[in-house]
């Protein structure tokens, strides 16, 4: 029982990382139709920039977090302006995909250079505070942060999207940029806001994950991308709650699966779920958006 609870919490912490990333990824995909394969690298840069300011300038946990989020948001905005904006007039899936591949290649290169092709770790004393050791369950402080921040971010994003004016503008632009402009929405501002929120969240996910799992590296972001992608499919496009819950599901299933079924089978379950959903319920658990069926 104790083991189960431990692994459940581990899974939820992991799932929270996946879910936070998935929300950010799904936000762009659902509102702008861009499948951005470079999104994982944005998370990586959230981690890298946080790590750099800690290592070189002795920042503490929260300021470094702010830096990580800010850097990620900036990179997101830059890549959107430079690479995706010129394509907006003739938006087509393939074009966006190839561009995002180009951005991905550039960012991976830069990331590897920044890390000198190593895997780095944060200094262990970065997060102070007692490790949760109640009733023999052990959680690293990074995991606790994930468990707390993730759901808060999810709720916050959901509220922003549904209860605020900027949120409805974001959804309107996602639905139709032309009609939004006719209605007086400043699409540039909205697009930039969407990108900033999305990239910032990715940076948050990257930063917290790299601390919780002791790993600052380019593959960290790529892992988030793959699992985030699975989470968005399983949870449902177009709904951030679905994306976050999808992440939680995948994280928990992965960890519990590894514990009780087989260590090797982690990814089998995840990607098996993914293909099953794509084949039989592509809109996911919570999704309503369904792209047109082939004739």
């Amino acid at each position, binding site marked *: 029982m104790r083991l189960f609870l431990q692994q459940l919490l581990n899974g939820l912490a992991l799932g929270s990382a996946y879910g936070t990333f998935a929300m950010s990824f799904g936000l762009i995909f659902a509102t702008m139709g861009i499948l951005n394969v470079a999104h994982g690298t944005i998370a990586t840069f959230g981690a890298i920039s946080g790590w750099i300011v800690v290592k070189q300038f002795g920042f503490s946990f929260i300021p470094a977090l702010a830096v990580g989020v800010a850097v990620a948001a900036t990179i997101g905005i830059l890549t959107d302006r430079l690479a995706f904006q010129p394509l907006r007039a003739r938006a087509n899936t393939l*074009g966006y995909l190839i561009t995002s591949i*180009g951005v991905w290649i550039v960012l991976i290169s830069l990331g590897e250079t920044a890390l000198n092709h190593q895997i780095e770790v944060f200094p262990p004393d970065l997060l102070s505070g007692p490790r949760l050791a109640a009733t023999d369950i052990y959680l690293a402080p990074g995991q606790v942060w994930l468990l707390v921040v993730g759901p808060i971010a999810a709720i916050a994003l959901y509220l922003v999207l549904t209860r605020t004016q900027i949120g409805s503008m974001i959804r309107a632009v996602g639905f139709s940029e032309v009609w939004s402009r006719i209605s007086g929405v400043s699409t540039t501002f909205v697009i930039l806001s969407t990108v900033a929120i999305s990239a910032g969240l990715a940076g948050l996910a990257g930063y917290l994950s790299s601390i919780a799992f002791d790993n600052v590296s380019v593959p960290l972001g790529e892992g988030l991308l793959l699992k985030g992608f699975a989470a968005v499919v399983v949870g449902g496009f177009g709904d951030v709650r679905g994306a976050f819950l999808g992440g939680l599901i995948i994280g928990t299933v992965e960890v519990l699966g590894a514990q009780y079924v087989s260590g090797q089978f982690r990814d089998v379950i995840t990607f098996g779920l993914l293909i099953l959903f794509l084949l039989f319920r592509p809109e996911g658990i919570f999704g309503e958006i369904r792209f047109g069926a082939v004739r």
Partner: protein
Amino acid sequence: MSQFWDIYSINVEFALVLGIFALSAYLGLWSGVLSLAPIAFGAGAAYVSARLAYDKIMIGEANYPLITHLIVGMVIGGLLAWVTSFPLLRLGSHYLALATITLVLIARVIALNLDKYTGGTIGIMVERQIRFWHIPIIIGVVSLVFACLRKSRFGFAMDAVREQPEVATSLGINVQRVRRYAFTFAGVLGGLAGVMQAQLVQYLVPETMYVELAFIAIASAVLGGAYIWVGPLIGALLYTAIPEFVEPFLGASKNIVNGALLVIIMIFRQRGVIDPVQFRNLMMRRRSRRAEA
């Protein structure tokens, strides 16, 4: 000159095999399908071929000839494609694209988990039977097939299915069958390229044919021009060659130029380097100028 060759011949080999992967992605695009699945089928084919060779060598016998491996690769690739085409081609185009990416992910996971057969993370050693001169011959045959396809009944059918599936149906074309054949043939190409790739690397692990390769393959196809078969081959060559020119300046980060190149091409010349329409217009302009003179 021969020094140049010593250094770069391996690059050319990889570039040409990448070209075949790019052609497999192009074939999907030709019929209106964005599919990275051939890379997954290539992995499957490569493992079967590598395993067959390994079993032979382990019992002390000589390996099968190269042609056997190439045929096995094509058959396995085609078979895997045919079978998966049934569930996959029912999906709408966006979900289909995502499902093919998922196939590539799943292929690696399967390779990891069937470790008794595939060697898991350790992988299988692959004997390199390909000599350099094999590769242009293979490329030549593949090119011939594509050149035939271009103005053939099936080629036009693919164009119609891509552009206006409804019109194609009312002209009597079996749209699903066209897509399925294209998908399967792309799988055959993927299987062929997979076997070749494994032999060039001389080592087969689950990461040999994975998402990076899949993305690079389709990026090369679009870079070179996804409107005629020459494009993906040129794209693959460019993609492999260009970083070499900047290596003196950028060293290990040389791949950055490829990324920048992709973005630039999509902004300024999204039809790719080789554009048959532009070529046709050029020819017609020259012809009319000559007629006036």
